[in-house]
């Protein structure tokens, strides 16, 4: 365990300072090699720095994650409730709503998967991620890549910089994870389309207008 920690610290040290250059820089007038002192300080500093910022990072990520899942979580609850209602109505087939629920669950799982992939990124990309963190809240459409995707049915859905608001059309921005995310969702219907389908089903089943309006409201937060 200690060995692993030491190896990790050494790699972090070298990432920052790159071998031979710092060695020559760390010789003082007495000709003494101060690398050891510097390196010890660096290791102590890394530990202290990490400890000082972990909770802050956790809180930041926690809020971001909570915001991202709010709309999809609520939508899944709506569709699950509709399915349970359908199952209590012998005259209504629960098949269409079950299919919709499966798609919603898949969409939600895709969002979690993208987050897990972002978490597994190697530590060498730390500085890239720090850059991204500085950009938090910046319009995602500036990050390159296509803003439009085409689904199986050939219709287009376009993101309009809405991604960080509610996790609609999932856009976890953590660097390279974005690439995986994009490919994950090309085949799937967008959350907006799924919400639209849900509104159609609510009308078909003769359920209250207030419910349809609520789903419409949820949809409008994603556009």
């Amino acid at each position, binding site marked *: 365990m200690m060995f692993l920690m030491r190896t990790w610290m050494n790699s*972090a040290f070298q990432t*920052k*300072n790159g071998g031979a250059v710092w060695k020559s820089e760390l010789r*003082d007038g007495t000709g*003494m090699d*101060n690398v050891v*002192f510097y*390196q*010890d*300080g*660096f*290791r*102590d*500093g*890394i530990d202290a*720095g*990490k*400890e*000082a*910022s*972990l*909770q*802050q*990072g*956790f*809180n*930041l*990520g*926690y809020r*971001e*994650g*909570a*915001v*991202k*899942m*709010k709309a*999809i*979580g*609520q939508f*899944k*609850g*709506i*569709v*699950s*409730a509709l399915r*349970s*209602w359908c199952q209590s109505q012998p005259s209504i087939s629960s098949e269409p709503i079950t299919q919709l629920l499966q798609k919603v669950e898949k969409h*939600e799982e895709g969002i*979690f998967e993208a*987050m897990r992939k*972002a*978490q597994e990124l190697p*530590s060498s990309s730390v500085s890239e*991620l720090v850059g991204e*963190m500085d950009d938090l809240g910046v319009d995602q459409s500036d990050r390159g890549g296509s803003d439009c995707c085409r689904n199986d049915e050939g219709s287009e859905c376009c993101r309009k910089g809405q991604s960080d608001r509610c996790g609609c059309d999932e856009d976890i921005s*953590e660097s390279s994870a974005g690439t995986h995310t994009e490919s994950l969702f090309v085949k799937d219907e967008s959350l907006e389309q799924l919400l639209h389908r849900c509104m159609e089903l609510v009308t078909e089943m003769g*359920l*209250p207008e*207030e*419910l349809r309006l609520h789903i419409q409201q949820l949809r409008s937060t994603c556009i």
Partner: protein
Amino acid sequence: MAGFSQNVTDDLFDSIIMADDRFHLDGYREGFEEGAQQGLIEGRNHGMLHGARLSAEVSFYHGFALTWKFILQNTEDVKARKRLKAVETLDAMIQKFPYEDPQNEKLQEHMERVRAKFRQVCSLLSVAADFREYMSGSEGMSF
């Protein structure tokens, strides 16, 4: 002469000690900066999954409660009133839920109460509460 020699030795010794401190301090400062960045990234990644899981679960209950509320408000059934009351209580509990604060001491307690109410609602609605994936997913909400 001896005094001069002593002074030189002291100065040399001091400069070595100071060099220790200076280089250690320089290293510490750079290390601290690097560690703080790593801590932010690692903390953020962990926090994001925790926040996402918790929000997905609570939002699920919210959507579930709201939908049943709309349905039951328009039902004349005898049982509907009792069911509606339970659903409204669940909705009210979720409205007060401390989403935004992972360090809220009562977060876990709130969560347990919401889950218990959800199970009660499902029982009243004669719905199988087979949403078990949620029940184990939100442990350890902060470091």
